[in-house]
């Protein structure tokens, strides 16, 4: 870039801070510093491994949801979908004698199918995705409970440990990785991989350009030839894939799945993405930001427990924490840029 007399020198730092994810990093550092200063266990390697694990599964979902949100849509069915895929896997592997791996494949197919349907209905009917996926959310919730009751007679399906292929599948989805004498869950590796891939897609691929465009202004994007419907359907399928991944991780870790898990999680995914700098109106955000948003949420959520604060007030502290973290993010971004529409 050539020097231009119309450009003031504002320094590298300030330029870098404009990026959505770097604002979130500041929030994350603030939250970490707060808890680490007060709790030794929190900053110990064991503590980190502990709070990083739920942050990882949340992060996988948050990244997928962030992509979808950048593309201008929501998926409220993402939370229950983790239960649906887990239930399918467990029920097929235990009651119908399929091995774990084939059961995983079937549940993946179902998840992608539901994602495809979500996308199709949204793009065809032009109903807001909030409503369409709310419908899917409720329906899946009913199916999860109804089918589980029908098949097992109780509200959970278990016994995966005895199914064929369990050990190998568990190694892949729910194993642990040793590092520095502490064992970290393999979910963390999945999470890093998903974040890296999503970042690459967003920043360096054609699809990424399309995602920003359909979320920023769908009609304008369509007018220059972006296949908006295909892009959105693909995004819904990506979210469904992430839900399958998380569902499988959970099913293999706990070997049984309760029919009502995942409910309410969909909003936590959105929250993580928004903390990480995604706009609810679409067209702006980043995958890394969403990942960091998940870490902020995970740290605040667990840090309060580490500090041993009264459980009755837990939600109060959590709310205050999130607000402060987002505010820090915001102030940093404000400082870095004056106006951005």
């Amino acid at each position, binding site marked *: *870039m050539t020097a*231009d007399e*119309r*450009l003031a020198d504002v320094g590298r730092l300030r330029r870098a801070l404009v990026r959505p994810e770097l604002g979130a990093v500041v929030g994350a550092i603030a939250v970490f510093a707060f808890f680490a200063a007060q709790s030794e266990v929190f900053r110990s390697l064991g503590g980190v491994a502990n709070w990083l694990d739920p942050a990882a599964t949340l992060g996988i979902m948050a990244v997928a949801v962030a992509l979808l949100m950048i593309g201008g849509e929501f998926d409220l069915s993402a939370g229950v979908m983790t239960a649906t895929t887990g239930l399918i896997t467990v029920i097929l592997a235990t009651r119908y004698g399929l091995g774990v791996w084939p059961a995983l494949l079937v549940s993946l197919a179902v998840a992608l199918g539901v994602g495809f349907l979500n996308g199709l209905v949204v793009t065809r009917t032009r109903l807001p995705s909030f409503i369409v996926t709310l419908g899917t959310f409720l329906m899946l919730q009913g199916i999860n409970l109804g089918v589980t009751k029908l098949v097992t007679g109780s509200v959970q399906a278990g016994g995966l440990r005895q199914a064929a292929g369990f050990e190998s599948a568990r190694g892949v989805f729910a194993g642990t990785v040793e590092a520095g004498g502490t064992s970290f869950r393999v979910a963390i590796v999945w999470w890093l991989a998903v974040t890296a891939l999503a970042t690459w897609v967003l920043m*360096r*691929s*054609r*699809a*990424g*350009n*399309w995602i*920003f*465009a359909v979320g*920023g*202004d769908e*009609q*304008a*994007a*369509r*007018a*220059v*030839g*972006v*296949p908006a419907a295909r892009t959105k359907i693909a995004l819904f399928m990506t979210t469904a894939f992430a839900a399958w991944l998380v569902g499988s991780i959970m099913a293999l870790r706990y070997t049984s799945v309760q029919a009502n898990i995942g409910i309410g999680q969909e909003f936590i995914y959105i929250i993580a993405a928004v903390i990480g700098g995604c706009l609810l109106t679409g*067209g*702006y955000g980043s995958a890394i930001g969403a990942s960091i948003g998940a870490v902020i949420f995970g740290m605040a959520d667990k840090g309060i427990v580490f500090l041993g604060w009264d459980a009755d007030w837990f939600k109060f502290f959590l709310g205050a924490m999130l607000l402060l973290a987002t505010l820090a993010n915001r102030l940093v971004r404000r400082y870095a840029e004056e*106006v*951005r*529409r």
Partner: protein
Amino acid sequence: MILQTRGIGKTFGSVLALREVSMGVAAGQVTCVLGDNGAGKSTLIKILSGVHGHDSGELLVDGEPVRLTGPRDALDRGIATVHQDLAMIPLMSVWRNFFLGSEPRRSFGRFDVAKARRVAREELRAMGIDVRDVDQPVGTLSGGERQSVAIARAVYFGARVLILDEPTSALGVKQAGVVLRYIARARDRGLGVVFITHNPHHAHPVGDRFLLLNRGTSLGEYGKAEVTREELTALMAGGAELERLAHELGRE
């Protein structure tokens, strides 16, 4: 005729935006669409470029009746458009907007970012727009800069037909001149051009055929030979009237 309409019409709910309009664009020719505000020019353009489907009449590409399934379809048939309003994604950077929908690719579907930036910067500079930073979001550009990005994009990707809906409206005199030169050059390269403008000084020099619209209907299509310069100017209520206006605008 590369692109042609026969008695084409479009309705929005109860609004009859366009009725029974026939026109055509031939290779190496510039068709100007003229008309008052709200005459239906942009609506016609949107039908030609696949944004709206038509409700009646026929649309022909290379003499074949077609129904465009969408803008992608039109682009694939070599029709590039600069719309009056559906222009840019404000939150996206200049280079991303420039290549949106036609991203240059390298292996693995990788978006060739370096090339995209270089080309965007060069094409804009050729139009007399020197953007500071192609990473700037389009929403922060000035009105004219934004329009220039859209024009540069359409010219760069234009294959057989170039459709420009009031491309020069927000441009300075210098930049408008560049655009007129672009149009002439495209015409000379054998492209068909559809050009909408309210400025008779812009329309007359480059136009080969003139379609006149009024309140959604066609007042006729004239070849350059069929209509004298004076008639056209009168039809557009142009230059002469402006001269008269000049006196009127002086101090009372």
